[in-house]
């Protein structure tokens, strides 16, 4: 019988990353289609909480306590501890997050297995059939593994997380038999004031560009994001100007996002930005220039000054909720 393994990702506070609940839901669905076994693995300093959460989505989860004592377990140690479970499974699914990509690359080298990256959809036909978005969303390709095994990295917001009808079983494993990868020490974990949920996972993003004009101008972007229950994003121009940290940058050399709503303020929509956000379900833009490229692919464009339209939207939202 085929088998699928989900490598869970743990957040800074020891909980399960949201991406892992989505990946687990996807893996369970695929296992149902394939008549395959499915399980998960969590490696952390104290894996119990995250493993229990993951077992809400999967029938069996192995929890491995990392003995290094670090509160953030480096992807090398996660991949190493998960190696034997991954070898025993035909297919491994991980989130296409920074840690997930690292785990996928390391397992690929250790197992000699292929990787299909950034899945935006996965079906089963005698193995996973993986949809990927190419060239910034201009093309969707479907790929599969040539052998009987492989590793898939899955983008956030591809499926909605749905818990299993009954929680699964957590068993505690050990790191014995893992790969001996060279050490990387985590000296410090620094939280920055602007820290928020990973922008790739946000369902609503309000993003500002050159038109926002200043760091102060981003107050309006933040207020709108707050009113909509979303995250703050930015174009490269805004990041390069130092108005907002690089972690919020969307586009070619930043993050690729697929929220339900993308509200773009003062963003022209040049190709470098477009490739990061054009698969958003709904795109609304506010821009003074009716000929800005974003007007060609947004669902709704307001031609106007973001500093008058933005506060008016805020007021309208507040009057609805109030």
């Amino acid at each position, binding site marked *: 019988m085929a088998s699928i393994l989900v490598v869970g990702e743990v957040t800074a506070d020891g909980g399960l990353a949201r991406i892992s609940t989505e990946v687990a839901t996807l893996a369970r669905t695929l296992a149902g289609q394939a008549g395959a076994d499915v399980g998960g693995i969590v490696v952390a300093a104290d894996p119990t909480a995250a493993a229990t959460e993951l077992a809400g989505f999967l029938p069996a989860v192995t929890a491995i306590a990392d003995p290094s004592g670090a509160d953030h377990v480096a992807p090398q140690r996660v991949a190493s501890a998960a190696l034997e479970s991954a070898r025993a499974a035909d297919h491994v699914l991980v989130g296409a997050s920074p840690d997930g990509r690292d785990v996928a690359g390391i397992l690929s080298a250790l197992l000699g297995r292929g990787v299909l990256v*950034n899945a935006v959809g996965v079906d089963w036909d005698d193995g996973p059939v993986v949809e990927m978005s190419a060239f910034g969303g201009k093309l969707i390709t479907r*790929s599969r593994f040539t052998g009987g095994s492989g590793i898939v990295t899955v983008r956030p917001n591809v499926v909605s997380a749905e818990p299993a009808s009954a929680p699964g079983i957590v068993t505690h494993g050990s790191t014995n038999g893992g790969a001996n990868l060279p*050490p990387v020490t985590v000296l*410090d974990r620094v939280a920055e004031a602007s820290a928020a949920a990973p922008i790739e996972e946000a369902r609503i993003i309000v993003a500002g560009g050159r038109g926002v004009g200043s760091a102060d101008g981003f107050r309006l972007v933040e207020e709108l994001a707050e009113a909509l229950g979303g995250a703050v994003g930015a174009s490269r121009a805004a990041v390069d100007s130092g108005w907002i940290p690089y972690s919020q940058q969307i586009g070619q050399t930043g993050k690729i996002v697929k929220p339900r709503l993308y509200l773009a303020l003062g963003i022209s929509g040049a190709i*470098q930005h477009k490739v990061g956000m054009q698969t958003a379900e709904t795109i609304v833009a506010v821009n003074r220039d009716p000929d800005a490229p974003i007007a060609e692919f947004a*669902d709704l464009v307001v031609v106007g000054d973001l500093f008058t339209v933005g506060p008016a939207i805020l007021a309208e939202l507040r009057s609805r909720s109030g």
Partner: protein
Amino acid sequence: MLRIVVLIKPVPDPASAAERLTPDWRLDRTAAPPVINGNDEYVLEAALKLIEAHGGEITTLTMAGHGATDVTRKALAMGATRGVIVTDDALPGSDAVSTARVLAAALRELDYDLVFAGIDTSDGLGGVVHAAIATVLGLPYCSYAARIEPNLEARTVRVRRISPVGYDVLEAPMPALIAGTQALGEPRYPSLKGIMAARSKEVVTRSLADLGLADGSVGGGVSTTQVIDSRQPPARAATRVVRGAPDEAAREVVAFLAERRLI
């Protein structure tokens, strides 16, 4: 004295919007002009700054057919010391496993303290090959670097790795492989002097036979993945354009969001 190898990939210029696949589902390298992958330019710039501060040399390493010479020349014009190009008729269509093995074999022939790679590429976007290379070579590996600080006496390197909540400070012994991001800083433009100097810099070309990998174990022929088909994404509906007074426009926006159940 610091020896850095920078991995550089030629990609179809994303700004051209002319990227396409060939009929056998490979990236059509001739469809758009090749440029240095954006994230590779950031790590090259970081390497150049480190060499300026500590002394040393930079070797670029590129595995590609089309475009390899163009991007190597540009990197040399920006200030890299020499270039190595791995090219072979068996390589097109290589998957992540093969690519990592070939680049690892090429790195085994070089002396280095640090290997830099861009965090991902604008054509493949996978971001998994550098972790695989480090694993094949048994190198310590740090990704998502926003700052890279080697300590030559202690033979260690400190890296700020961007995390979901801020950043982690990592430390690894050298040699190490580091995958970096745009947060490392804006790349320089080649100067006229740099462009002239690049013409006389050494560029070495290696084949799979040179690397001892001509046994059919790597390349497009043994890919672990294959494309089945492709399609255009569904076209977006026509754009609705709203003009008028801010209050009216705002009401229309909010009604639109409510209609789509976004609020």
